[in-house]
Every structure is written in structure tokens, then in C-alpha cells.
């Protein structure tokens, strides 16, 4: 059991962000495409701006 230790450390932790992401993932988790994140951001921005104009 100790054999596989240290394999999943995600390489060098050089540029550690404040939020840490590991390689391990759960199959239950909802997977989001990075394009979806950008598209959602753009859409929310446009929506709020349009509503501001309309108001």
C-alpha cells in the first residue's frame, strides 16, 4: 500500500496557486468543459449589460 505513495503529487509544486488541484478525480463529479466556463462568463456579462440597458 505504501508502494504507490508519492506518485500522485502532481509533479513539481513550483507555481502553487492558492487553490490546489490534484490529478485524482472522482468519477461521480460533474465535469465541466473549460469552454463552458468562458462561454458562461461571457453570456452572464452580456446578459447583465443588456438588462442594464433595458432597465
Amino acid at each position, binding site marked *: 500500500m505504501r508502494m504507490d505513495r508519492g506518485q500522485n*503529487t502532481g509533479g513539481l509544486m*513550483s507555481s502553487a496557486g*492558492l*487553490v490546489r*488541484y490534484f490529478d485524482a*478525480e472522482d468519477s*461521480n463529479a460533474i*465535469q465541466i468543459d473549460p469552454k463552458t466556463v468562458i462561454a458562461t462568463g461571457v453570456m452572464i456579462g452580456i446578459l447583465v449589460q443588456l438588462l442594464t440597458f433595458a*432597465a
Partner: protein
Amino acid sequence: MGWKEAAEPVLTRMPAVRRPEGHVPFKRKLMWTAGILVLYFFLTNIALLGLQGGEATDLFGEFRSVLAGEMGSLMQVGIGPIVTASIVLQLLGGANLLGLDTDDPRDQVLYQGLQKLLVIVMTALTALPMVFAGGFLPAQQSLTLGGLEFGQTQIEMLLFLQIFIGGILILYMDEVVSKWGIGSGIGLFIIASVSQRLVSGFVSPTSEAFFYSWYEIITGQTGVSVASLDGLTYMLSDGGGQLIALVTTILIFAIVVYAESVRVEIPLSHARVKGARGRFPVKLIYASVLPMILVRALQANIQFMGQILNRTWGGMPTWLGDYSAGEPTGGFFYYLNPIYSPQDWMWWTADVGQEAWQVLIRISIDLSFMVVGGAIFAIFWVETTNMGPEATARQIQNSGMQIPGFRQNVGVVEKVMERYIPQVTVIGGALVGLLAVWANMLGTIGGVTGTGLLLAVSITYKLYEEIAEEQMMEMHPMMRQMFGRE
């Protein structure tokens, strides 16, 4: 049954950004990073719907340059919730209260889930008082949207919803950069926010900006004679020629870049391949400047509390906090308020309303907070990010290297590492804290604050190193295996 089993169904199901399969080419990484940066700037320019214009005050105050985002926009909370959640995790993890082993894949999933849940909770907790307590973001009286009439309470809900969604977006934007881009989203947003302030501190056409104020001095619009003592003071001062601020800003740049290269190098040789040698660098700023943001955020959270109390609690005793024009001028919250600019402490000038001893107490509290806090958070940071003696010894052992003259054994390497890493971490953390306070006392161009400047320079340096590493990997696919990323 521990908390792990109880929380598992929730924590394992937190939505996550998909990981790239295989290697992402450097150009593609650059595109993702640039895309997120553009989106960030776009969203900082979208004003919140239903906000009463012109009357909002920034709860983040002087901490804005470090916490990124933009007041009154969809990016209202900036990276505040992420930093606060990170403080909680660092403290829990550093004191080993979580019982999570970050080498175990199962615990890694739980850690990631817990981290995300904490950020979401903190986003709500940051957004709630902004909208509902103390009128930091006053809502419009009424709002009509396509025939629907909204009352003030509903508009406040609408404001909260927008800020909350903006905060969640920042979380996922960071995840996209971390997984598909270069560096981290948080680093990117800090650089963006600080550089924007720095550039406008130089070139914006107001008398607060560096170039414009010098234009005024040279054309004689200031009414101060250049050749007199007053003129000299004016040229140096923060409200005038800002020469001291300029020198401080440049010095911080130079010191951080220099300190990045100060290191103790531990020689390594390969156990099997004769002649293959390497060095393990223990940098002076080993834990980087990021722990500093945690100390600042802790101070920021104390000040938010003061601001909220001041707005909502009419009978607040003066020993707790005495406020005038939204700034603490006495009491507990005054002494815990960090020094932002020369106007905060130069007690012999007319800008400071406090006695010299009060100012000195405030300076010493700020200094000890930053130096001691910097050291403590640096230690926690090293432990939680696997940069401690034990973890690095294991990494060196796994790569087949050893320290020449010592037995090839994890315990032995760890002993050698223990001689350097903790000491260097504490000295580095304290030094960075000292630098940040010193820079704030002398002032910086554009009011970016010492911490903001330190963070921006050090993150940019890290980014540069990472890009260099990326390009090396592009050139030699073999390198990818060496860096452990296939």
C-alpha cells in the same frame, strides 16, 4: 464514522473543470490564459444591475489591489473568498486537524471538494454583508425590467445573486487557468489588478499620477518654488512629485528579483549514473510571497468586521473603534489597521490626527503582524504544499538522486533538508513581511501597496520560470518525463 465518510457524498460531487487528456501545447496554454484574462477584464467592466450609482463604498478599501476584482462590477468580491477559504484550509491543514493525507488519491478528491465548498461558502459570506448590511452597495429604489416591477428588497437579492455568481465564476476561471493554462488564475488576476493600478498611477491625466504631477511641477502650475526647501519636500512627497514612491517601487522590484535568486544549493548526484549531478535549491523566498496575501487577508477581514460593525451598530464603544469618514481613527480597529501610505504615519505632518505614541503602536502592531504572521504562514504553506523536508526528501529519493557523502536513504536526506528548509522559510517569510510594511510606509506609485507589488513581481517571476520550463518541454519531449508530466 469520521467527518470524511459523512461529507464524502457531497465533496466528491463538486463540479470540476475537466482535465486535459495528454499534453497541452504551449501555444494552446497561452490562448487559454489570455482568454481568461480578457474575460476577467470584460467582467470587471460590467456594472452590477440595480446598483445605486455613485454612492457605493468599497468594503475592501485599501486591500483592493491585493484582492483584485473591481468595486461595483460582477467581479466585486475578487479573489477575497478564495483567499479567506485558503486561510481556513492552511490553518486546519497546517495544524493537521483535517486528517487528510494529500498523497492518497481518495483524500485528494476530498481535499479538492472541501476547498471548493469553502470558497462557495466564503463567497456567500463576503457578498451578504456587502449588500444587506451597512449599505456598502446601496440598491436602487425601484427597477422595471420588461414590465416587471422590482422593490428594494428584491433588487438587493438580485445584487447578491450577481455578486455570488461573479465569485463562483472567478473560482472556475482560476481552475481553467490552473488546468489548461500557465500559472494560476489567482496569480493572473493579482498581476492584472496591480499592473492596471501601476500603469494608471504613472500615466493617468490627474495630479495623483506621476507623469502629470511632474508636468505640473515643470510648467510651474503647482505654485511651489522648485528651488526652495518646500519645493524639494513637494517633489519627494506622496501628494506631489512622488519621487520617494518611485524609488520604493523600483527598489521593491529589484529586491524581489534579487531575492528570488538567493538560495542555498544542496548538491545532488545520481545514485546509478556516474557524473550525473544536480542541485536542489532552497530559495530565500522559499515559500514564495503567496503566504503574505494570507496575512494581509486576515488583516483585511478584521477591518471588514470593523467597517460592518461601524455601519450597523450605532452604540459601538470608542475603545473598539472610532470612525470618521469611513476610516478608523481610534480604538481597537485603528491599531489593527495596517499602514497603507506615508499619510498614515508621518505624525509630524497635518495629515495625521493621532498622537505620535498612537501611531507608533499601530506601526509596531502592523510590523509584528506581518513579520510573525509572514513566518507562520510560510511554515504552514511549506507543509501544505509538499515543500517541507519530508516531502522534498521523498521527491529527491524518487528521482534516484542522493546527496554525495551521505547514505542513500530518505531519512538521511530529510535530516539534511531539516537543517535548511525551516530556517530559510522563517527568515524568508519574515523578510517579505518587513519589505511589505516598509514599502507601504514610504508609499508606492499608484497606491498598489507593498504587498501588491511584492506579489505582482514574484508571481511574474514565477510565471517567467514556468514559461521557460514549458518551452524546454516543448523542445525536448523527453523533458516532460523528467518533470513528471506526461
